[in-house]
C-alpha cells in the first residue's frame, strides 16, 4: 500500500459518509463567518425553521465592509450598516462567538482565525470566502465555500464534496535575500497559471516553504486560490506547533499534549503519490510584480512588461492586449519604469505583524515620494495593530507619510471608502489584480510588503534588494 498525502489524511479523518458516485459528507470543525456572505445563509436557516448544528465551531467577525478610520462615527454607508447590523443580529440570535468592530480582536477573518488559535492543525476549516485556503498553512484542510454551503454547514456541520486531486508544489532550496513568501507564491502562480491548481488541493513543500514563518506560510496558502486550488496546505512542524501554543482557542493541558502528538502525523508520507508534482528552484525566484489583470500576469521586477506578440496562442494574446490596455502599459517597458499613484499595505495576504515589520524596515528614515497621493497601512487585526504600535511601527509609517488605519479588508476589495479612482495605479500587497478590484477603473500591481514600501518611497517600482 502506498502512503497517504497530507490531504488524504485530512480528508479520511473527516468523511462522515459517501454517496455512490464518491460525493462525500465531510465534517467541518471550524466555520468562520463574515458579514458579506452570511446574511442569506442565516435567512435561509430561519426560513426553513432550522438551527445551527454546533455553534461552538462558529466564529464571526465583520471585515469586508468596516471603515478603517473615524470608527467613533460609526458606519456612515447605510447599505453597509444594514449588513453589519444583520451579522450582529444573527450572532445574537444564534449565540455565536463574535468580535465586533469595537473589539481589539476584530480584523480580517483569515488573520484573526489563526491569531486566536481558532484555526488548528488537522481541522477542516471553511468560510464563505475564497481565501480560506490561508488556514491550510497549519496542516488543516481549509476551503472557501459559497453562501449555500455556508447555510449547509451551519445546518448540518458538514459539506458535500468530491475529493480533489493531490498536487504538490515543491520550492527547492533556500530563497535569496530580499525574496519573500509573496514572491514565492506569485512565482508559483506565474509558473502554473491561475487555473493550474483547479480541482486540486495543493501541498506546498520544499526547503523554501519549510524555512518560512507561519505568517509566510499563510501568505503562500492564501494565494493557492489564485492558482485555482480551493485548498492549499503545508505540513505541520515545530514552527506550526510553536505558533499555536497558548493561543486563546488552542487546547490546554492534557488536551494540548494529545493534540500535539496527533498533529505530528500531519505530513505526507514519504511514499505518498501525487497526481501532479511541480518543482521550482527557489534560487530562481526574484521579487515579483504583476503587470496585468490576473495574478498569473506576473514578472520579476528586473524584467520588462511582456509582449502579447510573443504569446503564441491567440486567445491568450488577446487577453494580454486587453490587460495592457486596461493597465495603461506598453509591452517591453521596464517594470521599474511603472510609476504609481497609491500604495496599499494590507489584506489577508500581507497584513500580519511580520509583513508590517518588513515594510517598516524599508520605510524607516525615508519619505513617501511627492507624487504618491495615498500610501496606507491597514493592519490585519486589532491585535496586529496594537503590537505594531508597541514596536513603534506606526510612528515609522506616519513619519514617512503613510496613513495608519484600523483593521479590515479595506482597499483589497474596496467595498468601503478606501478605493482607487479610475485610472489610478496602485502597488498593493493584496491578492487580486482583477479589473476594478480596488475600484472601478483602478490598476493594481501585486507585490510583497517590502516591495510596496520601496515603491512608495521611490514613486515607481524598484528592486528592494538594491536599496
Amino acid at each position, binding site marked *: 500500500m502506498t502512503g497517504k498525502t497530507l490531504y488524504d489524511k485530512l480528508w479520511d479523518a473527516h468523511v462522515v459518509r459517501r454517496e455512490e458516485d464518491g460525493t462525500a459528507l465531510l465534517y467541518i470543525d471550524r466555520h468562520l463567518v463574515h458579514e458579506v456572505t452570511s446574511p442569506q445563509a442565516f435567512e435561509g436557516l430561519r426560513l426553513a425553521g432550522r438551527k445551527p448544528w454546533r455553534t461552538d465551531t462558529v466564529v464571526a467577525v465583520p471585515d469586508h465592509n468596516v471603515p478603517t478610520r473615524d470608527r467613533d462615527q460609526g458606519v456612515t454607508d447605510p447599505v453597509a450598516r444594514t449588513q453589519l447590523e444583520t451579522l450582529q443580529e444573527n450572532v445574537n440570535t444564534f449565540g455565536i462567538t463574535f468580535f465586533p468592530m469595537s473589539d481589539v480582536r476584530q480584523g480580517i477573518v483569515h488573520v484573526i482565525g489563526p491569531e486566536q488559535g481558532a484555526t488548528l492543525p488537522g481541522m477542516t476549516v471553511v468560510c464563505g470566502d475564497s481565501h480560506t485556503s490561508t488556514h491550510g498553512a497549519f496542516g488543516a484542510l481549509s476551503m472557501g465555500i459559497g453562501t449555500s454551503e455556508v447555510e*449547509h454547514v451551519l445546518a448540518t456541520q458538514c459539506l458535500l464534496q468530491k475529493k480533489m486531486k493531490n498536487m504538490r508544489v515543491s520550492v527547492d532550496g533556500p530563497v535569496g535575500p530580499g525574496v519573500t513568501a509573496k514572491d514565492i507564491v506569485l512565482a508559483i502562480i506565474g509558473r502554473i497559471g491561475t487555473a493550474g491548481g483547479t480541482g486540486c488541493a495543493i501541498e506546498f513543500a520544499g526547503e523554501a516553504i519549510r524555512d518560512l514563518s507561519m505568517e509566510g506560510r499563510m501568505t503562500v496558502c492564501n494565494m493557492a486560490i489564485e492558482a485555482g486550488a480551493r485548498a492549499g496546505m503545508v505540513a505541520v512542524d515545530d514552527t506550526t506547533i510553536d505558533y499555536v501554543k497558548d493561543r486563546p482557542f488552542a487546547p490546554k493541558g492534557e488536551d494540548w499534549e494529545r493534540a500535539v502528538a496527533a498533529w505530528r502525523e500531519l505530513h505526507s508520507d514519504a511514499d505518498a503519490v501525487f497526481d501532479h508534482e511541480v518543482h521550482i528552484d527557489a534560487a530562481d525566484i526574484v521579487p515579483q510584480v504583476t503587470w496585468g489583470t490576473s495574478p498569473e500576469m506576473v514578472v520579476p521586477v528586473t524584467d520588462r512588461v511582456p509582449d502579447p506578440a510573443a504569446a503564441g496562442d491567440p486567445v491568450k494574446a488577446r487577453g494580454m492586449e486587453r490587460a495592457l490596455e486596461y493597465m495603461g502599459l506598453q509591452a517591453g517597458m521596464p517594470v521599474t519604469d511603472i510609476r504609481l499613484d497609491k500604495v496599499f499595505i494590507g489584506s489577508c495576504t500581507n497584513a500580519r505583524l511580520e509583513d508590517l515589520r518588513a515594510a517598516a524596515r524599508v520605510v524607516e528614515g525615508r519619505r513617501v515620494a511627492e507624487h504618491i497621493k495615498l500610501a496606507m497601512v491597514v493592519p490585519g487585526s486589532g491585535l496586529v495593530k496594537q503590537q505594531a504600535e508597541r514596536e513603534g511601527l506606526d510612528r515609522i509609517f506616519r513619519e514617512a507619510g503613510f496613513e495608519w488605519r484600523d483593521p479590515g479588508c479595506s482597499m483589497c476589495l474596496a467595498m468601503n471608502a478606501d478605493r482607487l479612482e479610475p485610472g489610478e495605479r496602485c502597488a498593493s500587497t493584496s491578492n487580486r489584480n482583477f479589473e476594478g478590484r480596488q475600484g472601478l477603473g483602478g490598476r493594481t500591481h501585486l507585490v510583497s510588503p517590502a516591495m510596496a514600501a520601496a515603491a512608495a518611497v521611490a514613486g515607481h517600482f524598484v528592486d528592494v534588494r538594491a536599496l
Partner: protein
Amino acid sequence: MEKFDKLTAVVMPLDRSNVDTDAIIPKQYLKSVKRTGFGPTLFDDWRYLDPGEPGMDHSQRRVNPDFVLNDPRYQGARILLARKNFGCGSSREHAVWALTDYGFRVVIAPSFADIFFGNSFKNGLLPVVLDEAIIDRLFEAVQAHPGYTLTVDLEDQVITTPSGESFPFEVEPFRRHCLLNGLDDIGLTLQHADEIRAYESRRRAEAPWLFDAGPRA
C-alpha cells in the same frame, strides 16, 4: 431550488478567458443581504458606461453598446458560452445569483473555477464543460448565425445544435440527481443526522479538543 431538465434557448458568447466573479458582479452590490435583484448589475463594469451603486435605477444608466450583453441579437439569451476558467476569484455566490436573476440557466465553458462550479448547482444553474475545440466551433456558429440556439438536455447529458449535431457532457450523478429534481441538499443531508452524530462521538473520543471549541481559559 429551481429544477433543471431540458432547455432550448438563445446563446450569448462571452469571448474572454478567466472571467472572474468580481467582473460578474462587482463588490458594491455585495452589501445586499438578499439573494435576488442582482440581474440588472450582472457584468456591471462592462455593461454600463457610468459607475453603478446599489439602490440606483439601473434602467436609467448609460449602457455600453459594445458589450455583448447589450447586443440586440442576444436578447433573451439563457445560455452563456464562455472561455476557460470561468468564475475564478472570489467565492461570492452573488455571481451565480446575478446570472440566474438575469435569466441564464446554463453556462458552457472549457473549464470552470471550483467554487463557482459548486455554487452553480446549488442555484439551478447548470455549468457544462465541453472540449476547447468544440467551444471554438460553437463560438464560430454563434457569430455566424443570429438567433443561434442550443438545446441542453441534462437527463441525457447532451447538447444539440439546430442542425442536429450533438455533444455529450458529464455531470456527477449526485449533482445531476439534485438538479433534475430541484432537491434541497440540506434536507438530504439531514436524513443522515444519525451518521453525523455517530461520527461526532467517534471523533470526540479521538480528538476531544475539537469539541467545545470556543475560547478556552
